[in-house]
């Protein structure tokens, strides 16, 4: 099975996005705040786990590190598609390009991270599937292979869950829960960077760049940057473990707001027997009307 996994570097959600100057750089902090998103990494892990051959594909200008990450993780090929006509491309334009590339690569399955390569739109897998004439399975929180089909677990609104299957070839969109991302060492990253990736332009995909510039697309007219918000530095959380504190801090360096030290909302660690613990949990849930 040959899988093509779509990758995209986006803004690091842990770092505030702030304009440096009105018409200049998009955010302060430079390229360090661009990372491969968790759903894309999950898609990559799923592809590596399920397929015998994996190709990483991105539509991005030069400078992306997503393909080096994929190569370091073990994909066979890494391809960057770019053309000046793709600047400010919307999801429909991206879908055309990705569909053409996947056709050229003779993929059996296309995997994409949820809201990955289309700048936040979740429509890309469906649009690519429609262009290829394949079925689409989106929002997969888990993914397994059963002979010539893929079976996905999906969480639905309201706490429902469902299992869905799709015959190959297909396009599958996965969420971050689909697979735990594996660490890629800097040594492996640098080795992959030296190895380099393939670069395709639109002509290589059989598309006319002049024509592509005229493809209808939605335009971003204006960006309103988030307002600065007041933040508080908290006192150390005395009842929490260091691991909990570090997890709170890892969200971009914002100091965690301390939970109230007293009162019903206080975080507490109790050391009691399993039976007593169960009783306490039941009492806690009853007190909040969550248990009859």
């Amino acid at each position, binding site marked *: 099975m040959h899988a093509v996994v779509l990758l995209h570097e986006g803004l690091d959600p842990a770092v505030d996005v702030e304009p440096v100057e009105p018409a200049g750089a998009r955010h302060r902090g430079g390229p360090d705040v661009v990372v491969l998103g968790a759903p894309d990494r999950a898609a990559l892990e799923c592809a590596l786990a399920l397929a015998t051959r994996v190709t990483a594909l991105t539509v991005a200008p030069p400078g992306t590190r997503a393909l080096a990450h994929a190569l370091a993780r073990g994909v066979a090929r890494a391809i960057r598609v770019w053309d000046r006509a793709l600047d400010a491309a919307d999801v429909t334009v991206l879908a055309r390009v990705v569909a053409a590339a996947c056709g050229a690569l003779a993929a059996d399955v296309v995997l994409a991270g949820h809201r990955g390569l289309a700048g936040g739109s979740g429509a890309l897998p469906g649009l690519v599937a429609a262009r290829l004439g394949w079925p689409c399975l989106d929002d997969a929180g888990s993914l397994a292979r059963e002979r010539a089909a893929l079976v996905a677990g999906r969480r639905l609104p309201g706490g429902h869950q469902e299992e869905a299957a799709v015959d190959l070839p297909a396009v599958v969109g996965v969420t971050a829960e689909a697979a735990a991302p594996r660490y890629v060492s800097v040594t492996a990253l640098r080795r992959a960077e030296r190895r380099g990736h393939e670069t395709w332009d639109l002509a290589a995909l059989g598309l006319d760049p002049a024509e592509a510039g005229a493809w209808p697309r939605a335009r971003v007219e204006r960006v309103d940057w988030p307002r600065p918000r007041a933040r508080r530095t908290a006192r150390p959380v*005395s009842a929490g473990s260091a691991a909990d504190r570090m*997890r709170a801090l890892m969200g971009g360096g914002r100091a965690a707001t301390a939970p109230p030290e007293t009162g019903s909302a206080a975080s507490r660690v109790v050391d009691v027997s399993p039976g007593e613990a169960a009783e306490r949990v039941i009492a806690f849930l009853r007190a909040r009307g969550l248990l009859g």
Partner: protein
Amino acid sequence: MNPVTRPVWWNVPAWLEAALYAGTALGLLAAAWGLAGHLRAWRQAHPRPAGAPVCGPGALLRVAREVLGERRLLEDAGAGRAHLLLVHGFLVLFLGTCLVFVHDRLVPFLVGRVYLAFSFTLEWAGLAFLAGAAWLLWRRAGARVPRLERDPAALAVLLLLVAIGLTGFLVEGTRIAATDPPFERWSFVGWALARGVLAAGLPAAPLHRGLWGLHAALSCLLLAVAGWTGLRHLALAPLQLLLRGQHRPGALAPAPGGPGTATLAQLTRAQVLDAATCVRCGRCTAVCPATAAGQPLDPRRVVQATLRALRERRALETLVAPEAAWACTTCAACVHACPLGIETLDKLVDVRRVWVERGEVGPAATAALEALRDRGSPFGGPAARRLEWAEGLDVRVLRPGEATDVLYWVGCAGAFDPHGRAITRAVARLLRAAGVDFAVLGARETCTGDPARRLGEEGLFQEAAARVAATLASVRYRRLLTHCAHCAHVLRHEYPDRDGRPAPVHHAALLAELVAAGRLAPRRAAGSRVTLHDPCYLARHDGETQPARAVLRALPGVLAVEMPRSGRATGCCGAGGGNLWAEPREGPRIASFRMAEARATGAGVVATACPFCAVMLDGETGRGDVAVRDVAELLWDSQPASGPGEGGPDRVPAAPSG
């Protein structure tokens, strides 16, 4: 009348004498064969530290002091004294045997009073040898000291030593009984045994010949097994001490052959020697905080696994469980407890390096490493927020090319953690109060790479170190100050080329200096009963135990009390080795043991001098009966000008974004 001397080969036929020489030669050959395998592995392994002088008069003197003085062994009084008796008894007996050879074959000088003094001395040496061997045997077989394994080979060797000691005295006793010279009263043990042999009416001469043969055979056997058992430390320990003396325990270096432990070229000579020299005494395991917390790490087994890996030509990571490798806090308690300075943590970090290259890293460590790689801080904070701690303090930020007297390296914990920020503010206020010209690097500061190296991400450490070195090279300063023990350690010992720039000074040392100079004058009481938790990386790794105590002594109304484990023998808080992020979630926390120790002193304040320790110990203050404060916070609290609450963990309004 018999001359006052000993007939050396009395009652020993020529064939037995020849057998002794042959046995000795065979024993030496067997021992050499046993040692040869280790020496071959040692030669094939990577020589590190490259270019460092192997030895000089100072190093030899230090090794002689270690071997003869047995300072580290005596830290466990029972084992130390027993070993001291055994070793010194053996050395005197060995020297005596050499002198007897000289007397017999070269210059017959053991006559008259010289002989009497010689005999008297050797009696005491024999007693010491026998008592030491018997004591060690009792500890292992009878007293069942918990840290000692029921190791059949070790028991057999100790039995052999006891048997050699006993047969030595019996040979002497039967010889004296058979010849009965009155001057042999000076050989008081042999004399007493001779009286017993005579009283029992035993045939002294035949008995002497049999015992002589037995004693000789046992001695040859001891020689033969010396290269194959823990006894090889007799030959290897001095070499081990000599080579380890060049190396600072806990200071890590890149793996010589890249990540991996599958080939000898990927191990250092020091690691090969560690494995060959270990006698499995278990002191390392007895002091390991991870072992005490029930985590699956046993430092002794790690060293033994290295030996097995060498013998079986297997990669170390196939013999050490990942959970064991990740549990190490790199506190180096094991290294300091080991009388031979055998390191465990470098082997565990080597194993970690393999797992990192394979991507087999836990989610918490992954998040920390990726944050360091992408944002320059394992705490996850972006550069733009590094100066939030300084809000309202008007701290000078040094730009490239500028100069300052003291460059304050804040560190990631000091920039992002709430308690770390409070410590940073206290240090900055104290520096200002003392009139110190200081500045910080602000957003240009990045992680030193310490967590990356200790988590086994060597490539990331190299990049982080290069970045920090370039930043430091871009400014001028007279002193580099840091309040993070981990930053101080890695900047001092693991940045190979400081290009003449000064090593960092830890804030406790600078604050003690400012107090001593009268530039900081503590006036207000800053607590009553305070106990100091020495950070491992400051006290044990770098030997700095006094500056923080000097600061505490200067605080009015403070009664400093010591925990049982203090100074270089401090107890670990559990944060080192990347465990601040990747602390095992199962089982009791290492910090809870340390905090229990602190509570037992009755102190209301646990003082520390490292933000990592502060984070770990903060998590154990749930009962509210004890507070964790950095020495800088306590000193700031005691300053006359400071208002209430200013010195403690405080609320710091964030810098306006954008």
